[in-house]
């Protein structure tokens, strides 16, 4: 077993520190060391997007990033989208449009969608589909997901609602 490396990283706005082996992916560190199990493993080789997180505001597949690589960086996971004001407008839009069924791909899709809407406030349907091409969903057929993202566009400017449940 290789000696562990100390990693200091800001996750969801909080400065955290942990030890990991060089061979452990960021996904593994988030899930198994930090207990942030919201990001999921679907394939572990960058083809499904279920592990998507924001690394310095860029969408990455955390299964393809090593834990040691994020030392000194900033990471946002699905656990960081809601805050004391309530759910992120994207999350609320997903609830209102029933844009999830099993919910396994949902964290990755929310992260990827947030990255898109942070850059392009009003993307077309085609643009949303192309952006989300790296996030596989097997349950929904994507229809309600696209509609939820389109709807979230209008909501992002609004103040956040109290969580209803």
């Amino acid at each position, binding site marked *: 077993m290789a000696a562990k490396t100390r990693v200091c990283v800001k996750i969801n706005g909080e400065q955290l520190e942990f030890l990991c082996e060089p061979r452990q992916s960021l996904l593994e560190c988030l899930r198994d060391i930090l207990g942030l199990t*919201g990001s999921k493993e679907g394939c572990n*080789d960058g*083809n499904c997007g279920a592990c998507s997180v924001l690394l310095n505001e860029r969408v990455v597949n955390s299964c393809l990033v090593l834990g040691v690589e994020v030392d000194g960086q900033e990471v946002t996971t699905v656990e960081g989208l809601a805050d004391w004001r309530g*759910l992120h407008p994207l999350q609320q839009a997903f609830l209102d449009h029933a844009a999830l069924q*099993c919910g396994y791909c949902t964290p990755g899709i929310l992260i990827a969608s947030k990255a898109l809407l942070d850059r392009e406030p009003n993307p077309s349907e085609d643009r949303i589909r192309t952006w989300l091409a790296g996030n596989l969903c*097997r349950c929904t057929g*994507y229809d309600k997901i*696209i*509609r939820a993202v389109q709807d979230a566009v209008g909501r992002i400017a609004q103040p956040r609602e109290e969580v209803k449940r």
Partner: protein
Amino acid sequence: MSKDKRSTPEVTDYEVVGTRPQRHDAPDKVTGRALFGADTNLTGMLCGKMVRSPHAHARIRSIHTARAASYPGVYAVVTAQDFWWAKDRGTNPDESGETIKYLHENMLAQEKVLYVGHPVAAVAANSPHIAEEAAKLIEVQYEVLPAVTDVREAMKPDAPLLHEHLVTQSLSKPVQKPSNIGSHFQNLKGNPTQSFSQADLVVEREFTTSTVHQGYIEPHACTVWWTVDGDLKVWTSTQGAFGMRDQLAKLLSLPMSNIHVIPLEVGGAFGGKLPIYIFLEAVAALLSRKASRPVKMTMTRAEVFLATNPTSGAYMKVKMGATREGRITAVQAELYFEAGAYPSADVIGYLGFATAYMFAPYEIPHGQIDAYDVVVNKPRTAAYRAPGVPQANFPVEQLIDEMAVRLAMDPIEFRLQNVVREGSELLNGTTHGNIGAEEVLRAAQSSNHYRTPLAGPNRGRGVAQGYWGNWGARSSCTISVNGDGTANLVTGSVDLSGTRTTIAMQAAEVLGISPDRIQSNVGDTDSIGYTEMSGGSRTTFATGIAAITAARDVIAQMRGRAALLWGVEVQDVTFERGIFVTRRSGEKQMFFAEVAGKIAETGGAVTGTGNVDPQGWGGAFGMHIVDVQVDPETGKVDILRYTAVQDVGKAIHPSFVEGQIQGGAVQGIGWGLYEGYQYDTRGDMLNPGFLDYKIPTATDVPMIETILVEVPGPNHPFGVRGVGEVPIIPPPAALANAIYRATGVRVADLPMTPVQVLEAMGVI
């Protein structure tokens, strides 16, 4: 034979049914709080890892585990020898129809390995990386045998035999000679041979479909803890906690009450996580017992493709005859389904489903279907959303289309000429109950999509329909009333896509309260009565009935409490729209919450129970319309517009019903255009990953328009019909029919990849 009573729903102006409340578990799922199969973490937990065969067909000569067992960080190693009590089990199925010996051998191979990925040993270590390293230290000596991965090859007289003693089960005279054909079933109605000779038009083709995987994004995962007193706790992603418990009791020879299965959230299943073929849990249990620690076992994506339970590829020959007026007179089919490494478990039943449903949308006086279950060196096959029917439907809907073209008839009009109604006889001699076949066809015909002309070169429109019979089965629900008028509901139905909400909605309708005043939970095997697995399009129907029954039980008990409070007899108390009323000496009323507030002082807790096994459920029809554009140079098929019409009985939560239809349609699109297992000559799978086994992405499909037809289903108070499986059936044939109209060629092999299309067009 008595007709199904045409459902007269007891309430028609619903307060809750038909609305779109927020899902109870959705906030957990959009915030990452929800716990799925791999999300359990226990103190001292170890990681389990399987060692798997690199050969498609081989005899195991020896397994040496000493080096792995002594590797630092390894706590246990197991092989089939650790199931010492299993060696004496014969090959006769038990009362569940599943052969325990096959189950054991599929979990950890004993004498032979029958597919690449077949487990032979397992290790538990204190990190997944150590477990992986230790797994590589297990030495297995194999004697490699020739492999067979195609049903036609497997049936040849000189084919290598997977099981030396397997003889074909059928209702014919018993055969003595072993073969790779596990079973053969035949349906025969009338005199098809004579009828064909008199038909004005006969069409006949051969078709193949590839092995496809359910493709759930969450790999199989479980955490198992076998404590020293013989108690077994299992946290797992499964479609059925009770089925899992019962299988583990058999596999591990433990009393059922010692086994606690806690079903976690499931990241997709579609028939691939049925608690019939147990892949990880029993092996993890053995590791846990040896190590005296909890063990988590998960699968990699490659392991999911190689070694779980995809659905059968098939080779089929189908023939249909009709009059020149467009009435079908006779049909004939030979269906050869892949069973995978072992003969198919009874309960998967795809031979039964395929033969019963493939021609079910049509009035047909003469027909013969022969269906075969053939073992090949691939993982065991199971259900993918509608077992056996997407495969068998693909030829039928194309031949129907071919006949319509030859007779210059509109394809929906042709189907209407032959439409089935209540009382119509299927080829297996059973009759249709209360169905909405004609309603679906007419809704498709009058849809905006069908009435909008499609213009442009290389474009074509195809339609196809399908039928699925749905299911009932045992369900259990309890409802406890809280002092503030809210309620806690527990069912045994694993929630795959929001059923805990549709079940709560049905209870809420009866109780006269809002669904967000009901906490809706999925119980584990200790906390609720036996409930059959979630699948077969049964949950909203059967568990809904359990919830309605429990809610009525609650109302009956609360009427008694109201009677006590008013000093009247219980028969003087009625419950109307959420209000308890008595009219004895002047009218008095109490709201549900008021009576709930007095439960404590009128006799204690009020808990309603519904343990049901409902019968007489209704089947459902669906028709899909698709417009495609085919690139004549590349063969790529682009979907321009897609509409799915379906009889849903009564949509309890319309958004969820739409979601089921859209999801099933896109799975069917993947089955039709992109997906298929590919093998080399050694029987090695070439594409066990999402890069080369392509499932549809957001760029591959347009919005899926849904048209919900509601012909109330029989024997459910609100007219529910199962909806989940119908929509995966029509897409492959609808796409093939559209491709035909766009290019003039019929593609008879799935998937209809660009290469297949170009080959069919004669371009390459």
